[in-house]
């Protein structure tokens, strides 16, 4: 069986970000997979070395548009430790509201793209319509729908009104109902079940060995969540339960993320009731000087553990800032999950780790040219995978259900 390379990307219609895949296939089976990135690298770490401590927060939030709140909050939390500032509790509450609301919006966005990649476009429109409510909440809370720059070094930049908090509680209940609806849908729809279960399985040992993070690891039974291991900010007090499953396939990843929408909704409701009074931030001078110190700040972004390392040698600018994004840790698990699968599973497995390429412009393994090349645009890949799936539904049903 001669094997040839299937190239997808780097610029791809359904793939919102530039990422290059090369799959070495023999017939339908994928023998080897390589990911080729670097198309999204802007040199932010070097740029951060030329920004002051305060400005850096607003550059760090542009690492990724979907999890900008996580990057922004993680940077501000780290710099508060560097400058030894204690943000007021109300400011921390507002920052955590932006974290949890962003987890709901990011998971809903992922659910829509995941349904779209496996061919259910109506569900893509349904989920993204529900997501519009989080965008309205963000616009009211922070003044902008995406990249909200809500917190700053020393707390939060805007206060929340009582009316907003009651609206937040109503919307949190709505998100829980929608999460129930999608969970029942995913568990009852035979085509969704057949498409997602036993696809791209990541065993617990592989997840541990490859240091996978976030829902990808939790779906394989690995108890890893920064809010659980090392509760930062106000996560000691909020009601939090870690969600894990054992199967490790795409269905388990979907259910873990849908369940996490409910957990985030519960946290939002709890926070709306227990919001403390007081002011919102401690104002710092724009050219604040920092003592020579090293700090690591870790936050649970929607895709996993996000780590910022600061090194300051005294002065108004950081000496070195290291950003390790969650998607970077989940790239090797893609290759482990996809080898041995079919071409039709490529879109599902790749989307199942919720790759945020803007986050992780760090990984590339260049392929080895063997055999002739064949380029499939992704839209045809989805159409092809739907047809291939219909043809083999009966025989597959036996194998997968």
């Amino acid at each position, binding site marked *: 069986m001669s094997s040839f390379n299937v190239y997808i990307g780097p610029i791809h219609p359904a793939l919102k970000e530039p990422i290059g895949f090369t799959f070495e296939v023999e017939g339908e089976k994928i023998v080897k997979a390589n990911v080729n990135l670097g198309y999204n690298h802007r040199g932010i770490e070097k740029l951060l070395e030329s920004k002051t401590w305060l400005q850096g927060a*607003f550059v760090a939030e542009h690492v990724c548009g979907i999890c900008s709140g996580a990057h922004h909050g993680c940077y501000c939390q780290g710099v508060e430790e560097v400058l030894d500032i204690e943000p007021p509790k109300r400011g921390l509450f507002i920052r955590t509201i932006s974290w949890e609301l962003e987890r709901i919006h990011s998971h809903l966005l992922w659910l829509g793209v995941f349904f779209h990649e496996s061919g259910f476009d109506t569900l893509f429109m349904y989920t993204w319509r529900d997501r519009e409510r989080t965008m309205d909440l963000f616009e009211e809370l922070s003044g902008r729908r995406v990249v909200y720059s809500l917190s700053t070094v020393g707390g939060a930049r805007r206060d929340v009104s009582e009316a907003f908090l009651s609206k937040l509680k109503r919307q949190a209940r709505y998100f829980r109902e929608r999460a129930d*609806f999608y969970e029942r849908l995913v568990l009852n*729809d035979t085509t969704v079940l057949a498409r997602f279960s036993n696809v791209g399985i990541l065993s617990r040992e592989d997840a541990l060995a490859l240091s996978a993070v976030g829902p990808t690891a939790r779906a394989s039974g690995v108890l890893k969540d920064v809010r659980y291991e090392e509760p930062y900010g106000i996560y000691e007090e909020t009601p939090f339960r870690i969600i894990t499953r054992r199967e490790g396939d795409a269905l388990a990843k979907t259910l873990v993320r849908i369940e996490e929408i409910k957990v985030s909704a519960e946290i939002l409701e709890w926070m709306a009731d227990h919001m403390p009074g007081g002011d919102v931030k401690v104002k710092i001078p724009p050219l604040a000087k920092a003592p020579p110190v090293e700090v690591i700040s870790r936050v649970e972004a929607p895709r996993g553990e996000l780590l910022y390392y600061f090194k300051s040698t005294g002065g108004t600018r950081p000496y070195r800032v290291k950003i390790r994004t969650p998607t970077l840790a989940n790239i090797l698990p893609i290759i482990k999950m996809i080898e041995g699968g079919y071409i039709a599973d490529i879109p599902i497995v790749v989307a199942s780790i919720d790759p945020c390429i803007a986050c992780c412009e760090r990984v590339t393994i260049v392929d080895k040219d063997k055999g002739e090349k064949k380029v499939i645009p992704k839209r045809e890949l989805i159409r092809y995978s739907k047809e291939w799936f219909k043809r083999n539904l009966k025989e597959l049903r036996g194998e997968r259900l």
Partner: protein
Amino acid sequence: MKEWGFAWREAIRRLVSKAFTVQYPFVSVEAMEGYRGRIEYYMSKCTGCGLCALVCPAKAITMVKNDKIKPGRRMPVFDLARCCYCALCAEYCPSKAIKLTKDYHLVGYRKEDVKAKVIE
């Protein structure tokens, strides 16, 4: 579909409920209170201190010599094609001379067409 009733109910409920689409250009849509859009700069209040240019993360504000405020004083010029609309300048301006309005129609055929609103 083992239990397909609820999905049909959802579809029918969506069918009968009001359309979710906002017919945008024919229906005018206002951004919410506190939206950070086009910059409004009040030249009368400005003292030319340059704190906004110092604090801007995108280096979008340049201080330009301008005698309108006081002879020999410098005035900030906002490059909206570089600005990241974070409103740090408005927050740190001591004389509250900068405000970000709700105007989000920042479209132009050339980069220079999108300008900040300068009020004497």
